[in-house]
């Protein structure tokens, strides 16, 4: 039952975002979910995670059939979020390893490189002001297509909004590609709340979240998990 009032049952929509949220055939898991679970269990909430693609997640959130949606960048289609982002993401460029460029602020290195860019994304000025040749990748599942173009060497590099999704030691793709980052262009990944959730309920949840963050941020929790591996 959704969380319209001060009910202690929460239905949480989660979007795949490796390595924070991992969707496998049988289940969804990942440190972001463990963190949220740890936070809400302390306050005796009954929670249920539901895996949803981004667009559907937004629709379900606005309809009120889920109470929260995470992790998601701020968008005009969602009006309410908890006070602070859960974590931040930095965009970057992915390369075949032998062509790796580690520092992207040295934009001379991007001269005449063909860089695949998913249609519709806003690029950092470090890229737009460089002399790279931008090749827009259109259609559905652009990131997978981009990776495929990169591996076939039909592009020199792929712009990736969140390279950690692929260049992470838990992802086998990191054996083939390496990514570097446009530091200074990070965006927050939020926990969105349903517009149908009562003000009181949202306030209570936000207090719990802020107190929990102040004790230990998710970003530090995530880093510690990495060190346990």
């Amino acid at each position, binding site marked *: 039952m959704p969380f319209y009032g001060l009910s202690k049952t929460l239905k949480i929509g989660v979007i795949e975002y490796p390595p924070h949220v991992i969707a496998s055939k049988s289940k969804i898991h990942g440190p972001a979910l463990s963190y949220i679970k740890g936070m809400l269990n302390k306050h005796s909430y009954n929670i249920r995670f539901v895996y949803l693609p981004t667009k559907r997640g937004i629709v379900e959130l606005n309809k009120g059939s889920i109470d929260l949606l995470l992790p998601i960048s701020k968008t005009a289609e969602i009006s309410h979020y908890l*006070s602070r*982002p859960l974590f931040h993401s930095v965009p970057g460029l992915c390369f075949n390893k032998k062509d790796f460029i580690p*520092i992207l602020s040295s934009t001379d290195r991007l001269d005449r490189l063909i860089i695949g860019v998913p249609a519709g994304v806003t690029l950092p000025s470090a890229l737009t002001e460089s002399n790279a040749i931008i090749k827009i990748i259109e259609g559905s599942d652009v990131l997978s297509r981009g990776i495929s173009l990169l591996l076939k060497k039909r592009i020199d590099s792929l712009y990736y909004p969140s390279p950690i999704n692929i*260049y992470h*030691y838990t992802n086998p793709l990191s054996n083939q590609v390496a990514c570097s980052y446009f*530091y200074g262009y990070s965006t927050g990944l939020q926990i969105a709340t349903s517009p149908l959730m009562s003000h009181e309920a949202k306030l209570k949840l936000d207090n719990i979240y802020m107190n929990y963050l102040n004790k230990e941020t998710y970003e*530090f929790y995530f880093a510690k998990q990495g060190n346990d591996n």
Partner: protein
Amino acid sequence: MIIKYFISLLILLLILPLSTLALGNTSKKQEIQEIAKIYSASMQYIFKQQTLINHQSQDKEVLFGNKFIDKIKLTYKKKFNTSSFPDENKLTIKVLLEVMVEVMEDNKTLLLDEDIKFKGFIPAIFAFQISEKYSKKGIGLKVKFTNELDRVRNKFNSPDSWEIAAIGKLKQQALSEFYDPKGFYKGSESFRYIIPVTMSPMCLTCHGTPENNPENLNRPINKWTLFDKTGFKMEHWKLTDFGGAISVTIYNLDTLGEAH
């Protein structure tokens, strides 16, 4: 008797806020100094670990988690010739150390990547990542590795007007630090502090002359590259030049409207 008592009380009431203010200023200065020193020690550690960082197969446990923080503490004690490390329970210090662990974890895939020879994880890049993360923690504190306007390679490290003036003071008066409890940051009065960073021979491998570039070793002069290994044109700096500065700002969260 009663009059005497009231006069004493009045004097006490007048003195107390001033002494509290003075104490507040002293503790703020100490806090801001500690942040700058820890940040500086961490940059030095990254600087000294370049061989390990770029190694393609060596054990790199010391670069992560508590082991990394232990190394930063050791570097701090050695660099500042002290047996103690600042109080880790202080929020600003606790968060700074956490951010360091986060940054190292963010770079773990790269640092452990056995296929990549030069990782590009140099002190300036590490410092920038620390600054970026730290500024987003909502504790009203900003730390930054900056330099004179025409000497920064990344525009995000450009000095603001306070830093431009403060760097001028550091250089002209050969100061080892400059503290300003009423420095402006984004139009609001803030506690600001800056220390110079000394150039070392290792800095010259990127910022010096092509002769200093290890990639030009054993190459004839007409084959020398003018670019360093990070892809930037070498700037011909000398050891006696200004090496940059660490700038720390404690600003008022309420006046700048940032979420705590």
